């Protein structure tokens, strides 16, 4: 039984009818939004115990990474938290840049901030609209997915891809933002707040929604820290840990934003924290556009890591040589060990990279926030109803790709 005061219980301590049943929630169930299995022991609607099985889509990324040159690892990171791939891509690129000691132009950092905040919005939109769906409010979901689509179109303008973006390069971007990108971004910034407000009005102060989510799947701050929670789920429990503020990367210290925190750590607080983070992200994007510094869209002094432009490869000897070296994984990499973390959609996404000077990492470990906080799930749902368990799962925003790596 959960020891947090944050969980409401509809039940008294006695079992309802004393008939214990075992129920498989998942692995493939519409309510689990991914491939997770939860074997629930239930008494009527009340969950007495649950056991998780994970690893259904384990793809051995850490092993794969030991055989891939650095620039070929970016597509692997796409498939961690695939709701916000660009954050993973850029987290990885920044890790390598830290290892090689590259100096990144301010413009690149601002461009990255725009992309990362856009993907954070997309990530939170998925999570929050799905909380709506699980409480029976499908409408908000359909409208928000339209907006998510708009974000994907913006990302498409930069990288050519939508979901698994493989965005950017070690050292910057492959090309500068196009006028069409800014056009789409401005359109999004103009229209999104309107639709977002509608969505907010639909759910945030909705009596039914509040009754369903307040007290569902709560966790206390201390317990969350003990479990290693990070990101919105930790902040909903009242701990204001945000990597963007604690260890600013990519010039986040230049921007003005607040870190919203909750108090109860329940589904409603997680929802509200994400809603507010979306607003803050919008403000960060606005600031980044307005303050966008002049400069280059890639670091010019790391020829051996930054893939040269295709035109140059065809016309210039040096570019061709570097292109060949990078693609064949022949670039000299410094020996070293580096840990770098970014604030992913779900929390602290860390990369622990050990290089022995070879063409591939000697060891690369991902700190996947989902994997770490999903272990608290049984504790959060014990004593609650099955429908609350579904809500808790979607409000934790457990992404199968990140969970199983």
């Amino acid at each position, binding site marked *: 039984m959960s020891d947090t005061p944050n969980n409401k219980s509809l039940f008294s301590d006695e079992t309802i009818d004393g008939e214990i049943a075992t129920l498989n929630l998942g692995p493939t169930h519409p309510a689990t939004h991914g491939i997770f299995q939860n074997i629930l022991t239930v008494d009527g609607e009340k969950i007495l115990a649950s056991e998780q099985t994970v690893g259904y889509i*384990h793809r051995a990324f850490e092993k794969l990474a030991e*055989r*891939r040159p650095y620039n070929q690892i970016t597509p692997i990171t796409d498939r961690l938290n695939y709701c916000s791939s660009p954050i993973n891509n850029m987290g990885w690129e920044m890790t390598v840049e830290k290892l090689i000691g590259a100096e990144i132009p301010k413009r690149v950092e601002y461009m990255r901030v725009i992309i990362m905040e856009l993907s954070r919005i997309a990530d939170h939109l998925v999570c929050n609209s799905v909380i709506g769906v699980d409480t029976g409010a499908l409408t908000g979901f359909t409208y928000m997915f339209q907006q998510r689509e708009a974000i994907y179109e913006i990302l498409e303008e930069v990288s050519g891809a939508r979901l698994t973006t493989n965005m950017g390069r070690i050292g910057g971007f492959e090309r500068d933002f196009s006028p069409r990108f800014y056009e789409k971004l401005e359109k999004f910034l103009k229209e999104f707040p309107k639709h977002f407000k509608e969505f907010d009005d639909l759910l945030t102060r909705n009596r039914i929604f509040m009754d369903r989510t307040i007290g569902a799947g709560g966790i206390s701050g201390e317990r969350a820290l003990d479990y290693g929670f990070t990101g919105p789920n930790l902040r909903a429990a009242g701990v204001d840990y945000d990597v963007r503020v604690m260890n600013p990367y990519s010039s986040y210290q230049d921007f003005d934003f607040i870190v919203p925190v909750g108090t109860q750590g329940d589904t409603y607080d997680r929802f509200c924290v994400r809603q507010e983070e979306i607003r803050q992200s919008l403000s960060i994007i606005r600031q980044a556009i307005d303050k966008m510094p002049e400069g280059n869209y890639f670091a010019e002094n790391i020829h051996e890591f930054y893939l040269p432009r295709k035109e140059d490869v065809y016309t210039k000897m040096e570019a061709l040589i570097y292109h060949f070296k990078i693609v064949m994984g022949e670039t000299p990499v410094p020996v070293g060990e580096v*840990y770098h973390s970014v604030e992913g959609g779900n929390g602290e996404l860390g990369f*622990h990279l050990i290089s022995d000077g*070879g063409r591939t990492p000697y060891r690369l470990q991902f700190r996947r926030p989902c*994997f*770490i906080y*999903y*272990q608290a799930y049984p504790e959060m749902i014990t004593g609650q109803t099955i429908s609350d368990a579904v809500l808790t799962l979607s409000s934790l925003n457990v992404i199968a790709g990140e969970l199983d790596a």
Partner: protein
Amino acid sequence: MSNLSNETVLARLQEQFGAAIISSETPYDLLSVEVTADKAHDIIAWLKTDGQLRMSFLTLIGAVHFPNDKGREICINYHVHSLVHNVRLRLRAFLPIEEPNIATITDIYVGADWLERETYDFFGVNFVGHPDLRRILNEDSMDYFPMRKEYHLEDATREDKDDRYFGR
């Protein structure tokens, strides 16, 4: 937020545990301290409760396999973080591959549970005292530890592909 320097952390550790602290380095500003495997549990417990350091957040547990380092083949990394001072620390201990035993820290951090299971799953590290040390991401019937270096990503008997040209 106060200024807690890596030197202070190291000095405090050395003062408290003396011989258990083997060596230290600071790659990329992250203090990395090698400790003896038998003391790792106590050090992490002390770091969590110490009033000055307050390193009470476990970021990550991971392992690395160094097959050529006889007697210290498996390296366990513990990343702890003091959210109060915003200082990170990496503790590491080396274990022989024949007996990769180390005390579990699940009694200190609940969140260490799955991280230790994952490390067991991929490297075969035996976390002594872990309540439920089973495989987590791989299937239960697997009889080897796939992240160890002797297991190649591709079939090692393959002859049509020259490794010199394709990765490690």
